[in-house]
């Protein structure tokens, strides 16, 4: 067939440096994350089957595939078997897709195919040539490069001759290939099979499965590339989000350990801590600040955010325990004006409760936000709620950390150590992923509580092994603006008596 003559071998570097050897030319779907998993997109000029049960997100997937195609200069045809053009447009308007406008611009054609068994009498032989003509005409009308058939299995409900339909659908998929359109065909999940009518047998190049599960009253959507002929692809289940930004898949794979390691140092925002680390955190490294309740984790971590903003770098702050207002107030009380950076759009605060969504949904959300905002630094405060239970939580966190490293983003995580738990053991699950680990402790001595800080580990840098006392005070509000060269003074690390002499020897 003609498709064979177009077959070329492309060698490309994947986003994360994974070499992609592919026998099929690919069309970038434009769906966030999907193109990474598939090593470049869906098979160009061929049909892809997207299956899933009701509510799994098939139609949204298909719509976004078309809309992103149009944005890339590839007009599209949406053949809807279940919704009218108006219903479809209404349903996806909340995702920011304006189908009416695209139709008016002649970049999109939505054709609602109505097949009602009650209204049709069948007598004698027929075929689906009308559908072929209709689709062909629609493709020609807008010069379509992409086509969606959603959900073509509806034909089986409308027409009685199943064996004829099967033969015609087989012919339709061949026809789509011959027309060289990149197509997405959606299908309902069947019992014990990918699709109810076994369409996976006809669409041989690429099959994607969407899944929507509710476990412990928490819903998680997952996507899996079941099959992708002639192409390496991630075989894992990837969580995905559907929200007002459309579809986004969390593509992070465990490719890991291929990221570049920067030798550049960035300030922790606390001058003395920088000294202890011999110059600050490495850019792009992952920092864990752990400690018991009230030991000052957020304050120490937020200093890093403040310092990054002062350098003019974008920061993304995921707050899972406090609302943005509460956080801003609390930080103001220790001399940090986060509002200023938010106004200048250097800082973005994202607050939500970990319990509301599943871990994976959270990570997918974080991933999408990071991609959108493109920060130089990320603070996750805290990660504890994600790490305390299951082994796959660690796997998910590994994915997030890998992603941050690939992007060269410096990340600070805070983690709550449960009272009575051994500090060094409680975070054993994630410690191997962490480059620099700072432990905060509450000390009770001579009738007063005080805080202490130490660097438990810091890869690739000589660092202080001291345990140092520190205080969080109200001083030093906005010093960044007035005296940019001055070290920030509001979080002050005070040495314990008797340590000063040793410090001289260390540095």
């Amino acid at each position, binding site marked *: 067939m003609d498709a064979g003559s177009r077959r070329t071998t492309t060698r490309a570097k994947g986003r994360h440096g994974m070499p992609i050897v592919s026998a099929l030319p690919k069309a970038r779907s434009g769906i966030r994350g999907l193109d990474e998993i598939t090593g470049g997109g869906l098979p160009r000029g061929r049909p892809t089957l997207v299956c899933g049960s009701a509510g799994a997100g098939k139609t949204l997937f298909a719509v976004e595939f078309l809309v992103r195609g149009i944005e890339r200069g590839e007009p599209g045809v949406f053949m809807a078997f279940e919704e009218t053009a108006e219903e479809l447009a209404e349903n996806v308007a909340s995702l920011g897709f304006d189908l009416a406008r695209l139709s008016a611009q002649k970049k999109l054609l939505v*054709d609602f195919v109505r097949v009602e068994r009650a209204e049709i009498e069948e007598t004698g032989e027929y075929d689906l040539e*009308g559908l072929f003509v*209709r689709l062909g005409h629609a493709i020609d009308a807008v010069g379509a490069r992409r086509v969606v058939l959603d959900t073509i299995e509806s034909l089986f409900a409308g027409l009685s001759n199943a064996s004829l339909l099967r033969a015609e659908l087989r012919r339709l998929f061949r026809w789509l290939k011959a027309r060289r359109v990149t197509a997405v065909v959606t299908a309902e999940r069947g019992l014990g099979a990918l699709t109810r009518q076994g369409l996976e047998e006809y669409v041989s190049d690429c099959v994607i499965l969407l899944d929507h599960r509710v476990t412990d009253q928490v819903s998680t959507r997952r996507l899996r590339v079941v099959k992708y002929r002639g192409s390496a692809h991630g075989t894992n289940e990837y969580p995905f989000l559907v929200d007002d930004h459309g579809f986004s898949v969390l593509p992070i794979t465990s490719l890991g350990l291929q990221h570049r390691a920067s030798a550049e140092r960035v300030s922790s925002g606390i001058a003395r801590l920088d000294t202890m680390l011999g110059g600050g955190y490495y850019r792009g490294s992952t920092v864990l600040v752990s400690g018991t309740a009230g030991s000052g984790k957020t304050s120490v971590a937020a200093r890093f955010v403040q310092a990054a903003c002062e350098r003019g770098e974008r920061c993304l702050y995921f707050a899972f325990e406090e609302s943005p207002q509460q956080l801003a107030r609390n930080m103001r009380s220790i001399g940090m004006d986060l509002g200023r950076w938010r106004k200048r759009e250097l800082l973005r605060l994202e607050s939500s409760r970990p319990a509301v969504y599943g871990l994976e949904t959270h990570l997918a959300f974080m991933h999408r936000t990071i991609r959108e905002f493109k920060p130089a630094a990320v603070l996750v405060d805290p990660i504890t709620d994600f790490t305390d239970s299951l082994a796959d939580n660690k796997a998910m966190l590994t994915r997030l950390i890998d992603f941050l490293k690939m992007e060269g983003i410096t990340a600070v995580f805070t983690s709550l150590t449960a009272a009575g738990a051994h500090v060094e053991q409680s975070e054993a699950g994630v410690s191997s992923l962490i480059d620099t680990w700072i432990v905060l402790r509450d000390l009770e001595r001579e009738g007063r509580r005080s805080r202490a800080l130490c660097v438990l580990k810091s890869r690739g840098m000589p660092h202080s092994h001291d345990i140092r006392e520190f205080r969080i005070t109200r001083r030093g509000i906005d010093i960044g603006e007035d005296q940019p060269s001055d070290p920030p003074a509001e979080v002050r690390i005070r040495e314990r008596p008797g340590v000063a002499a040793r410090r001289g020897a260390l540095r």
Partner: protein
Amino acid sequence: MTGPRRPGRTSTVRAVAASLEAAERWELRLYVAGQTPKSLAAFANLKKVCETHLKGRYRIEVIDLLVNPERARADQIVAIPTLVRKLPPPVKRIIGDLSNNERTLVGMELVAEP
């Protein structure tokens, strides 16, 4: 309308026959895609039915989608051949080559459902 009200599907053959006497105009459209054996058979079968039951009171318009592809979308055509009874109302659709004479008559409401 000059004649009595056209009866529904469940009425008796007698009532149907009565309505036929009322000299209603029958407008039929046959959608085809080129001169395929199925299309030719459908046209021949339709012609036969009309000559038998509707002589002098019918008009068949053949629409070839290869010539007028836009009609497929405008008239909701999926299967070929499709016969659409435009008049008398309501609009009826029959798909297939009309080789089953009995079902064709039922579908067109020329006879009541057996």
